[in-house]
Protein backbone atom coordinates (compact mmCIF):
# COMPACT_ATOMS: atom_id res chain seq x y z
CA UNK A 1 0.00 0.00 0.00
CA UNK A 2 1.13 3.54 -0.76
CA UNK A 3 3.02 4.93 2.33
CA UNK A 4 1.31 8.35 1.95
CA UNK A 5 -2.11 6.67 2.09
CA UNK A 6 -1.08 4.67 5.17
CA UNK A 7 0.14 7.87 6.86
CA UNK A 8 -3.17 9.58 6.03
CA UNK A 9 -5.13 6.63 7.49
CA UNK A 10 -2.92 6.73 10.60
CA UNK A 11 -3.62 10.45 11.12
CA UNK A 12 -7.34 9.97 10.45
CA UNK A 13 -7.58 7.11 12.96
CA UNK A 14 -5.77 9.24 15.57
CA UNK A 15 -8.33 12.04 15.27
CA UNK A 16 -11.26 9.63 15.08
CA UNK A 17 -9.95 7.89 18.23
CA UNK A 18 -9.62 11.20 20.11
CA UNK A 19 -13.17 12.20 19.14
CA UNK A 20 -14.55 8.73 20.02
CA UNK A 21 -12.91 8.75 23.47
CA UNK A 22 -14.02 12.31 24.24
CA UNK A 23 -17.59 11.30 23.32
CA UNK A 24 -17.25 8.14 25.42
CA UNK A 25 -16.11 10.20 28.42
CA UNK A 26 -19.12 12.50 27.88
CA UNK A 27 -21.56 9.57 27.59
CA UNK A 28 -20.30 7.99 30.80
CA UNK A 29 -20.11 11.20 32.85
CA UNK A 30 -22.65 13.75 31.67
CA UNK A 31 -26.41 13.78 31.05
CA UNK A 32 -27.58 12.58 27.62
CA UNK A 33 -28.17 15.17 24.88
CA UNK A 34 -31.92 14.74 25.41
CA UNK A 35 -31.60 15.61 29.09
CA UNK A 36 -31.73 12.31 31.00
CA UNK A 37 -28.89 11.55 33.32
CA UNK A 38 -27.81 7.92 32.78
CA UNK A 39 -28.69 5.76 35.77
CA UNK A 40 -25.55 4.20 37.21
CA UNK A 41 -26.89 3.34 40.62
CA UNK A 42 -28.34 -0.08 39.71
CA UNK A 43 -31.69 0.25 41.46
CA UNK A 44 -33.55 -2.82 42.59
CA UNK A 45 -35.10 -4.74 39.73
CA UNK A 46 -32.61 -3.52 37.14
CA UNK A 47 -30.43 -6.47 36.25
CA UNK A 48 -27.06 -5.03 35.32
CA UNK A 49 -24.13 -7.46 35.26
CA UNK A 50 -23.09 -8.43 38.77
CA UNK A 51 -25.32 -5.71 40.14
CA UNK A 52 -27.11 -7.18 43.10
CA UNK A 53 -26.46 -4.25 45.38
CA UNK A 54 -25.33 -0.66 44.98
CA UNK A 55 -21.77 -1.21 46.11
CA UNK A 56 -19.62 0.68 43.59
CA UNK A 57 -21.58 2.88 41.15
CA UNK A 58 -18.44 4.72 40.00
CA UNK A 59 -16.36 1.61 39.38
CA UNK A 60 -19.29 0.07 37.49
CA UNK A 61 -18.58 2.58 34.71
CA UNK A 62 -15.66 0.31 33.80
CA UNK A 63 -18.33 -1.75 32.02
CA UNK A 64 -17.64 0.62 29.11
CA UNK A 65 -13.84 0.30 29.16
CA UNK A 66 -12.87 -3.14 30.47
CA UNK A 67 -14.72 -5.40 27.96
CA UNK A 68 -13.89 -3.06 25.06
CA UNK A 69 -10.16 -3.16 25.86
CA UNK A 70 -10.34 -6.96 26.11
CA UNK A 71 -12.05 -7.03 22.69
CA UNK A 72 -9.26 -4.87 21.20
CA UNK A 73 -6.67 -7.26 22.68
CA UNK A 74 -8.47 -10.26 21.16
CA UNK A 75 -8.68 -8.53 17.77
CA UNK A 76 -4.94 -7.81 17.91
CA UNK A 77 -4.16 -11.42 18.86
CA UNK A 78 -6.31 -12.59 15.96
CA UNK A 79 -4.16 -10.48 13.59
CA UNK A 80 -1.03 -12.00 15.18
CA UNK A 81 -2.51 -15.51 14.78
CA UNK A 82 -3.36 -14.99 11.09
CA UNK A 83 0.04 -13.48 10.28
CA UNK A 84 1.87 -16.18 12.23
CA UNK A 85 0.14 -18.82 10.12
CA UNK A 86 0.99 -16.81 7.01
CA UNK A 87 4.64 -16.70 8.12
CA UNK A 88 4.77 -20.44 8.77
CA UNK A 89 3.34 -21.05 5.27
CA UNK A 90 5.24 -18.47 3.22
CA UNK A 91 8.30 -17.64 5.40
CA UNK A 92 8.06 -13.93 4.62
CA UNK A 93 9.81 -11.89 7.34
CA UNK A 94 7.44 -9.00 6.70
CA UNK A 95 4.52 -11.11 8.03
CA UNK A 96 6.55 -11.75 11.16
CA UNK A 97 7.26 -8.06 11.84
CA UNK A 98 3.58 -7.20 11.23
CA UNK A 99 2.53 -9.99 13.63
CA UNK A 100 4.87 -8.56 16.21
CA UNK A 101 3.33 -5.07 15.87
CA UNK A 102 -0.16 -6.52 16.45
CA UNK A 103 1.04 -8.63 19.40
CA UNK A 104 2.61 -5.61 21.10
CA UNK A 105 -0.60 -3.57 20.81
CA UNK A 106 -2.64 -6.61 21.91
CA UNK A 107 -0.44 -7.05 24.95
CA UNK A 108 -0.99 -3.40 25.93
CA UNK A 109 -4.78 -3.76 25.56
CA UNK A 110 -4.68 -7.06 27.46
CA UNK A 111 -2.77 -5.32 30.28
CA UNK A 112 -5.41 -2.58 30.42
CA UNK A 113 -8.21 -5.19 30.46
CA UNK A 114 -6.52 -7.18 33.23
CA UNK A 115 -5.72 -4.14 35.37
CA UNK A 116 -9.19 -2.58 35.06
CA UNK A 117 -10.83 -5.99 35.51
CA UNK A 118 -8.82 -6.68 38.66
CA UNK A 119 -9.76 -3.32 40.17
CA UNK A 120 -13.40 -3.74 39.18
CA UNK A 121 -13.53 -7.32 40.45
CA UNK A 122 -11.99 -6.37 43.78
CA UNK A 123 -14.81 -3.82 44.23
CA UNK A 124 -17.74 -5.81 42.91
CA UNK A 125 -16.93 -9.38 43.93
CA UNK A 126 -15.43 -8.59 47.30
CA UNK A 127 -16.60 -11.06 49.92
CA UNK A 128 -15.72 -10.50 53.52
CA UNK A 129 -14.73 -14.13 54.08
CA UNK A 130 -12.16 -14.22 51.25
CA UNK A 131 -9.30 -12.04 50.18
CA UNK A 132 -10.50 -9.73 47.40
CA UNK A 133 -7.68 -10.57 44.97
CA UNK A 134 -8.15 -14.30 45.51
CA UNK A 135 -11.83 -13.89 44.60
CA UNK A 136 -10.87 -12.23 41.31
CA UNK A 137 -8.09 -14.65 40.38
CA UNK A 138 -10.11 -17.79 41.06
CA UNK A 139 -12.61 -16.77 38.37
CA UNK A 140 -11.97 -19.18 35.43
CA UNK A 141 -12.24 -16.48 32.75
CA UNK A 142 -9.76 -14.21 34.56
CA UNK A 143 -7.36 -17.14 34.91
CA UNK A 144 -7.53 -17.94 31.17
CA UNK A 145 -6.96 -14.27 30.27
CA UNK A 146 -4.03 -14.15 32.71
CA UNK A 147 -2.48 -17.19 30.96
CA UNK A 148 -3.09 -15.44 27.61
CA UNK A 149 -1.32 -12.33 28.92
CA UNK A 150 1.64 -14.41 30.18
CA UNK A 151 1.89 -16.24 26.84
CA UNK A 152 2.15 -12.99 24.90
CA UNK A 153 4.58 -11.58 27.49
CA UNK A 154 6.74 -14.64 26.71
CA UNK A 155 6.18 -14.04 22.95
CA UNK A 156 7.53 -10.49 23.22
CA UNK A 157 10.37 -11.56 25.53
CA UNK A 158 11.60 -14.35 23.29
CA UNK A 159 11.74 -11.93 20.39
CA UNK A 160 14.37 -10.00 22.36
CA UNK A 161 16.26 -13.06 23.54
CA UNK A 162 16.48 -15.33 20.48
CA UNK A 163 19.21 -14.65 17.91
CA UNK A 164 18.77 -15.13 14.17
CA UNK A 165 15.85 -13.55 12.30
CA UNK A 166 14.54 -16.82 10.82
CA UNK A 167 14.72 -18.79 14.05
CA UNK A 168 13.20 -15.96 16.06
CA UNK A 169 10.36 -15.56 13.55
CA UNK A 170 9.62 -19.30 13.49
CA UNK A 171 9.52 -19.58 17.29
CA UNK A 172 7.43 -16.42 17.61
CA UNK A 173 4.96 -17.68 14.99
CA UNK A 174 4.46 -20.93 16.93
CA UNK A 175 3.91 -18.91 20.12
CA UNK A 176 1.52 -16.59 18.27
CA UNK A 177 -0.59 -19.50 17.02
CA UNK A 178 -0.66 -21.38 20.34
CA UNK A 179 -1.18 -18.21 22.37
CA UNK A 180 -4.26 -17.26 20.37
CA UNK A 181 -6.00 -20.44 21.57
CA UNK A 182 -6.54 -18.59 24.85
CA UNK A 183 -9.03 -16.26 23.12
CA UNK A 184 -11.71 -18.88 22.26
CA UNK A 185 -10.86 -20.62 25.56
CA UNK A 186 -11.78 -17.46 27.50
CA UNK A 187 -15.28 -17.54 25.95
CA UNK A 188 -15.69 -21.30 26.33
CA UNK A 189 -14.52 -21.55 29.91
CA UNK A 190 -17.35 -19.55 31.48
CA UNK A 191 -19.88 -21.67 29.55
CA UNK A 192 -18.18 -24.93 30.55
CA UNK A 193 -17.74 -23.99 34.19
CA UNK A 194 -21.16 -22.35 34.32
CA UNK A 195 -20.24 -19.31 36.40
CA UNK A 196 -22.49 -16.25 36.21
CA UNK A 197 -19.95 -14.00 37.91
CA UNK A 198 -18.29 -12.96 34.65
CA UNK A 199 -21.01 -13.02 31.96
CA UNK A 200 -20.30 -12.69 28.23
CA UNK A 201 -23.56 -10.84 27.69
CA UNK A 202 -24.25 -8.42 30.55
CA UNK A 203 -27.84 -7.24 30.84
CA UNK A 204 -28.11 -3.52 30.20
CA UNK A 205 -30.62 -0.78 29.48
CA UNK A 206 -30.92 0.62 25.93
CA UNK A 207 -28.76 3.67 26.65
CA UNK A 208 -26.12 1.54 28.35
CA UNK A 209 -26.08 -0.76 25.30
CA UNK A 210 -25.47 2.24 23.07
CA UNK A 211 -22.48 3.38 25.13
CA UNK A 212 -21.21 -0.20 25.39
CA UNK A 213 -21.02 -0.58 21.60
CA UNK A 214 -19.66 2.96 21.19
CA UNK A 215 -16.82 1.95 23.54
CA UNK A 216 -16.12 -1.09 21.35
CA UNK A 217 -15.89 1.17 18.29
CA UNK A 218 -13.60 3.61 20.17
CA UNK A 219 -11.23 0.84 21.28
CA UNK A 220 -11.24 -0.66 17.78
CA UNK A 221 -10.18 2.70 16.35
CA UNK A 222 -7.51 2.97 19.03
CA UNK A 223 -6.21 -0.48 18.13
CA UNK A 224 -6.08 0.39 14.42
CA UNK A 225 -4.20 3.62 15.14
CA UNK A 226 -1.67 2.02 17.52
CA UNK A 227 -1.17 -0.89 15.13
CA UNK A 228 -0.45 1.44 12.19
CA UNK A 229 1.87 3.57 14.36
CA UNK A 230 3.76 0.46 15.52
CA UNK A 231 3.88 -0.82 11.95
CA UNK A 232 5.49 2.45 10.85
CA UNK A 233 8.26 1.86 13.41
CA UNK A 234 8.72 -1.70 12.15
CA UNK A 235 9.12 -0.47 8.54
CA UNK A 236 11.60 2.25 9.66
CA UNK A 237 13.60 -0.39 11.54
CA UNK A 238 13.66 -2.58 8.42
CA UNK A 239 14.91 0.27 6.22
CA UNK A 240 17.54 1.17 8.80
CA UNK A 241 18.73 -2.43 9.08
CA UNK A 242 19.04 -2.61 5.25
CA UNK A 243 21.06 0.62 5.14
CA UNK A 244 23.30 -0.47 8.02
CA UNK A 245 23.95 -3.79 6.28
CA UNK A 246 24.98 -1.85 3.16
CA UNK A 247 27.27 0.38 5.26
CA UNK A 248 28.90 -2.70 6.79
CA UNK A 249 29.42 -4.19 3.32
CA UNK A 250 31.04 -0.95 2.10
CA UNK A 251 33.25 -0.81 5.16
CA UNK A 252 34.47 -4.36 4.52
Amino acid at each position, binding site marked *: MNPAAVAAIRRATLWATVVAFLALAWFTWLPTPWGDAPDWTCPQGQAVSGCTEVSAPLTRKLLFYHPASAWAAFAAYLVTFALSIAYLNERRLRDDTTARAAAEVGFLMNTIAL*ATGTLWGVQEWFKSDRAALATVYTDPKVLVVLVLWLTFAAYLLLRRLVDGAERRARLAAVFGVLGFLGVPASFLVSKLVGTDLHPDDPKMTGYQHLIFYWAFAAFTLLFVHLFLARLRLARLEERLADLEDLETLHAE
Partner: protein
Amino acid sequence: MPSDATTFFAAFGTIALALGAYLWHLERRGRVLEERLATLEAAKARSNADARDGGKP
Protein backbone atom coordinates in the same frame (compact mmCIF):
# COMPACT_ATOMS: atom_id res chain seq x y z
CA MET B 1 -10.50 -2.38 50.75
CA PRO B 2 -10.12 0.77 48.60
CA SER B 3 -13.14 3.03 48.20
CA ASP B 4 -15.27 3.14 45.06
CA ALA B 5 -13.77 6.49 43.99
CA THR B 6 -10.16 5.31 44.62
CA THR B 7 -10.73 2.18 42.52
CA PHE B 8 -12.39 4.15 39.74
CA PHE B 9 -9.62 6.74 39.49
CA ALA B 10 -6.92 4.06 39.77
CA ALA B 11 -8.52 2.26 36.81
CA PHE B 12 -8.73 5.40 34.70
CA GLY B 13 -5.20 6.37 35.72
CA THR B 14 -4.01 2.96 34.53
CA ILE B 15 -5.70 3.37 31.13
CA ALA B 16 -4.43 6.95 30.65
CA LEU B 17 -0.88 6.14 31.81
CA ALA B 18 -0.55 2.97 29.74
CA LEU B 19 -1.84 4.61 26.56
CA GLY B 20 0.07 7.86 27.10
CA ALA B 21 3.35 6.06 27.81
CA TYR B 22 2.97 3.80 24.75
CA LEU B 23 2.06 6.67 22.40
CA TRP B 24 5.01 8.71 23.74
CA HIS B 25 7.34 5.73 23.23
CA LEU B 26 6.13 5.21 19.62
CA GLU B 27 6.51 8.91 18.82
CA ARG B 28 9.97 9.22 20.38
CA ARG B 29 11.32 6.00 18.84
CA GLY B 30 9.90 7.01 15.45
CA ARG B 31 11.70 10.36 15.63
CA VAL B 32 15.01 8.73 16.61
CA LEU B 33 14.76 6.20 13.77
CA GLU B 34 13.86 8.87 11.21
CA GLU B 35 16.86 10.99 12.25
CA ARG B 36 19.21 8.00 12.02
CA LEU B 37 17.74 7.06 8.64
CA ALA B 38 18.16 10.61 7.33
CA THR B 39 21.81 10.67 8.48
CA LEU B 40 22.57 7.32 6.84
CA GLU B 41 20.76 8.24 3.61
CA ALA B 42 22.63 11.56 3.42
CA ALA B 43 25.93 9.74 3.95
CA LYS B 44 24.98 7.22 1.26
CA ALA B 45 24.04 9.99 -1.17
CA ARG B 46 27.38 11.72 -0.48
CA SER B 47 29.37 8.55 -1.05
CA ASN B 48 27.42 7.86 -4.27
CA ALA B 49 28.17 11.40 -5.49
CA ASP B 50 31.86 10.98 -4.59
CA ALA B 51 31.97 7.69 -6.49
CA ARG B 52 30.34 9.35 -9.54
CA ASP B 53 32.90 12.19 -9.49
CA GLY B 54 35.69 9.63 -9.39
CA GLY B 55 37.06 10.96 -6.14
CA LYS B 56 37.73 14.47 -7.58
CA PRO B 57 37.55 17.30 -5.02
